[in-house]
Structures are given as C-alpha cells and as structure tokens.
C-alpha cells in the first residue's frame, strides 16, 4: 500500500491524536496539539509560490510585533510589510519554508510546555500554609494563571504578542522573566562559549590524533582520555577539579563570578563531556576521510603528511563535529545547572531547572522559548558553517 503523502499526514496526525486520547488527555488539548502539528506539517505541501507568500507574510507579521514597540504603528507596518515583500521577492523558498515552520513551532512549543507544566503536581502559588481557594483563585486571576492550561496559553500568547512581555516570574516576586533571564544570558553565553572552545580544542586534538592512527597507542590513549569525560557525571568531575585546583592548589577561586579566573574551572567541567563526544566524532570523521580517494591523490602529489591532514583532511574530519555543535551549544548554554550550582554562577541553567521545580510557569516558558531560539540560531549557524566547510551543500542552503 503506497500512501499518498496527504493521507500519510492525516494518518500520522490521527495516530498521534489517538495516542494522546488513549493516555487520557482531554480532547481539547489533544485537538490543539494535533492542530499545531498540522500547522507545522502543512508547509511541506506548499509549493514554492505559496511558501513565498506565507513565509513573507509570517516574516512581516513577526517583524511587526518587534518593530511596533519602538516605532509608531504606521511606520512599523510599512517597514514590516516592506521586509516581508522583499523576502517574498528575494529570499529563497528554502529559507522561507523554515520561517513557515518556525512560527507555528514556537506557538506549539508554548502550548505543549504549558500542558506539561500544568500536568505536574503543585502550583506556583503553593505555600507552606494551605491557603483558601479564594486566595488562590484571586492570585491566579491577578497573575494571569488560570486553572486551565488552554486559558493560560491564550493569556500568555496575548501578552507576548501584544506587549512582547514574557510575564512576571511567579515565584521571584517583583521580577519579570526578562529581569531574571536577561542578566543570566550573557553569563551563560560567556561560560558556554568558553566551554565550547575548550571542548572543541580538546576534542579535536584527541579525536584527530586518534583517528590518524586507529587502533594504535595514540588512539587508545586519546580515546581513553576522552571517554573519561563521559564516564563520570559532571558534578563529580567538577568536584574533583575543584578539589585539586581550587582547594588543594589554591590556583583558582572555589566559586563565584566576576573575574576571568572564575571562568576556567566551570568551563572545563562543562566542556569535558562534550569534548569526549567531539573526540569521538572527529576520530570517526578522520578515519573516514583518511580512507577517501582524494587523500591518496594528495599523497600521490607528494604532499607531506602534515599538509595532507591539515589541508585536505581537516575539513572533512570536522564536518560531523560541526553538525554536533548545534545541539551541543544549546545544551552547553542551558544545561549548566550542575556547574552553576557547584561553582555559584548566576547563569541560565539555574532557571531551566528551578523554573520547572518551582512551577514558575512564566520562567519555564521563557526558558523554553530561549532554548528554542538558541537551538534555531545555532542550527542556522551550523548550517552556515557546514556550507562554508563543504561547498557541495552550499547550493542546498
């Protein structure tokens, strides 16, 4: 039986909806999710002209939401429309198709996250002393957190769309989500980038060294070293590093944030598991590249081994690493809770965990949106880097 693609979509969506209903999700919520997924899926059926129109329109709409805040509405509309039109004319459909998918993805993300949060026991308004229903209801109304996740979703989306406001934190009084995540972002960024650089430097060195001589001592020692990075939870590694470099040797501060010396140990802790993955990927990449015919060609030209490795093999060897960097960067920037806790760093990882644990719905949504954006941004960066490295995929971008 060959399905037509549209039948396939309907079947897939129906199956997903069915599974949701089966596990006891209310029909409205299941319906919303399936609708969201359908919106996500629909651009696959858009022909290039439709993609241009829809993508341009969505781009204009999103742009308008941003521009409207600093600019007078008329100007914002004109500007947004102009950019949308330009996109319609000039931006390749491949990119506009991404836009078509991104916007519904973001909305669906908010809805799904809301559902997940609401389904966890406890509420942001729980306090040690049981409060009366009336007090709780009043608080829910005041903070815009009604009992139903769907209602909450509506309120939240309205707030975001109308004022670009991600709401107040529900558990840290007096702070908006922006207040909390705003200052944390550059911290995580600094930490994350440093870790990423460290991870790449360590991982590539070990991986390429191992890959050039597979099954040799160099291979075993490099990979052994790398695998240590993923053989222990990073809080153990962090604690050990701390013990050695901060407590025993006293070279570096034990915790805190402020000077560059505060950066090193946490970044290293954060980097090690990723370094291990990178080492593994670059090892495999190197082995594969070194077996390619063009390496033999390079040898036949009389190039030295070093030139062969660094000029001819390197790009191909790090390609798998590059595609790993997207998820890695997102993970490194946001998954640093352990490191932050261990080293007392005011970064974003804290909110990723504490938001969920404290049921701070707006913080959770804020972090989800940031994570989503980071993933998207880094995927784009990675795609660009990939194209830069591999000319063959440039045209497909």
């Amino acid at each position: 039986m060959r399905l037509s693609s549209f039948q396939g979509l309907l079947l897939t969506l129906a199956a997903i909806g069915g599974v949701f209903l089966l596990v006891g999700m209310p029909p409205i919520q299941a319906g919303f999710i399936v609708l969201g997924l359908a919106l996500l899926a629909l651009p696959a059926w858009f022909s290039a002209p439709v993609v241009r129109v829809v993508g341009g329109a969505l781009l204009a709409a999103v742009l308008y939401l941003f521009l409207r805040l600093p600019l007078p509405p008329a100007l914002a509309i004109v500007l947004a429309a102009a950019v949308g039109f330009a996109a319609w004319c000039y931006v390749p459909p491949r990119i506009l198709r991404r836009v078509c998918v991104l916007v519904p993805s973001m909305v669906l993300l908010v809805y799904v996250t809301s559902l997940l949060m609401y389904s966890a026991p406890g509420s942001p308004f729980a306090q040690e002393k049981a409060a009366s229903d009336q007090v709780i209801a009043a608080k829910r109304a005041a903070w815009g957190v009604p009992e139903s996740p769907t209602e909450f979703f509506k309120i939240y989306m309205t707030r975001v769309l109308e004022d670009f406001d991600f709401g107040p934190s529900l558990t840290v009084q007096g702070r908006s989500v922006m207040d909390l995540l705003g200052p944390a972002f550059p911290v995580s960024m600094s930490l994350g980038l440093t870790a990423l650089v460290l991870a790449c430097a360590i991982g590539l060195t070990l991986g390429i060294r191992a890959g050039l001589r597979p099954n040799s001592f160099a291979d075993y020692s490099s990979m052994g070293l790398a695998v240590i990075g993923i053989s222990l939870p990073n809080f153990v590694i962090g604690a050990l590093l701390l013990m050695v470099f901060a407590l025993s040797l006293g070279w570096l501060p034990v915790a805190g944030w402020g000077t560059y010396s505060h950066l090193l140990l946490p970044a290293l802790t954060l980097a090690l598991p990723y370094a291990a993955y990178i080492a593994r990927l670059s090892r495999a990449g190197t082995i594969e590249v070194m077996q390619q015919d063009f390496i033999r060609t390079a040898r036949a030209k009389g190039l030295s081994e070093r030139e062969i490795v660094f000029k001819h093999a390197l790009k191909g060897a790090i390609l798998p690493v590059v595609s790993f960097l997207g998820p890695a960067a997102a993970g490194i920037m946001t998954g640093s809770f352990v490191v932050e806790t261990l080293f007392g760093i005011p970064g974003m990882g804290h909110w990723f965990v504490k938001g969920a644990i404290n049921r701070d719905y707006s913080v959770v949504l804020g972090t989800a949106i940031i994570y989503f954006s980071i993933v998207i941004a880094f995927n784009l960066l990675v795609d660009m880097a990939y194209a830069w490295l591999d000319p063959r995929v440039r045209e497909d971008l």
Partner: protein
Amino acid sequence: MARAAATLAPEKGTSLWADAWRRLKRNRLALGGAVLLGLVAVVCFVVPVVLGLDSETTDPANSFHPPDAHYPFGTDNVGRDYLARVLVGGQTSLLIGVAATLASVLIGVFYGSLAGYYGGKVDEVMMRIVDFLYAIPYMFLVILITLQFSKEARGNPLPIFFALGMVQWLTMARIVRGEVLTLKNREFVLAARTVGAGDLRIIFRHILPNILGVVVVYATLTVPAVIILESFLSFLGLGVKLSWGVLVSEGVGVVNPIESHAWLLLLPSLFLALTLFSLNFLGDGLRDALDPRTRR
C-alpha cells in the same frame, strides 16, 4: 524427483553477525569492556543475593566507617553497608540504563523506520515533529515527567526510565530513519519489492535486520547517556531511591577541605566510571565491528 535430503545437507554459513562477533573479539579494548561490563553486572546482581547483603539496615552509631575487612566498602552516613548500597544501586542504574534504552529503541525504531520507509512528505512531517521535540529543552521534559509521577513512583525507577526513554528516542529515530532511507533504495530491497514483498515484510525482513547493527551500537552508547542523566536527576533530588547516581551525588558532598570520606564518592564513582567506560568502549568496538565504513 525425490532426492534424499541427506545429500542436500547444507553447510552452515557464517552470518554477518558472526563476522562482527569475530571482529569484536579481536578488539581487545571492546572485549575488555564487554567482560568488565558482564563482571559488574554479575557482581551487582549476584553478590548481594549470595552474601545476603542488606542495603537498608541503618546503624547510625557506626556511620562513616572506613573500608576494612568487615565492611569492605565502609559504611555511609547512617551506617549502612556501603558495599550493599553500591551493588544494589548498581542494579537500579543498570536497569534504568537498559530499560530506558530499550524504550527509546522501541519508539525510535518504530518511528524512524516508518518515517524513513514511507519517505517523502510523511517523512518530512514526522521529522519536523522530531525537530520540534528536539527544540523543547529535554531537561525539563525529563523533570516534568519525573515530577508527574513523583507520588506514584516513590523511588521506583519506572517513571524515570520512562522519562529518559521519552527524550532519548529522538536521536534513535533520526538515526534509524537515515539508515532506512538509504536502505530502502538498496537493490536488495528493490529486489524484494519486485518479487512482490509487502511493506511489512520489507521492513521486518529486509530493513530492520540491516539497521540492527546501527541500533545496537547506538543503544550501547545510549545506556551510558541514560545512566549519566539519571545521576543528574539524582543530583537534583528527583532520582530514584538508590542508584549509583544517588550515591555519587551524595558522595560529592564529601569533597571539601575539612574531611573527605573519600570512599563514599570514589567507590560508586569507580563502579559508575568502569561501567560507562566499558559501555563506551564496547559501543565503539561494536561500531567498528558492525559498521564496515569506519573499519580498517
């Protein structure tokens, strides 16, 4: 034309699995990993039963007893036999690792092979959903799912592995889908189609056996990832009652300049590291053995 079956007695061929096994056996590192892993598993599951070890009985008066002949692993902060705790904790960690991986394999293979096999728009849509799920921070997916079950679970590892399986299947689905995409246009699949094989037969007879290698490799590498993730949850206090993750995250508390009851961190870490080390090397070895592309 009756022919005696005896004259037809077939020679037994060596399957690719046998070949891979032979290659694996040559890879000393991987073999060492497998042996070590088996050893750890046997020790964790058999020794507590054989020796009748009790991981729960407390004896606070005897807490922080350093390792000696009577307590080979010492005791913990309320005087429980740390040997028993490390081994019983190992059972949970290994179970979670294997179970979550199995869950992710089942979902991932199912989803990935459907997407890859039907291809085209179905594939595009299904992969878009996966991309979407990727963009949800897996951490609070795990946390929220774990919270969801925190009451019913009461330290039971089931929800944790469910939660971990739920996030791990995505990569599996992607890998499987990629493999299926290439496999379904391989000539032997086309050949099967020309002789009239149906979709199910093609998926189960022709495609799945051929991606099994990749799946096994990836699964071997998923187990350590799951175990590490579980330890992270334990660090947050969302973990199970007793696992290596729990022990290690408790043990981290002793790393300080005052006094380190080092064995509380080092012993479970050692077991954890050995297991993960073995799994990783086994995984790499399996990859080398099963995937001829990276083989020399």
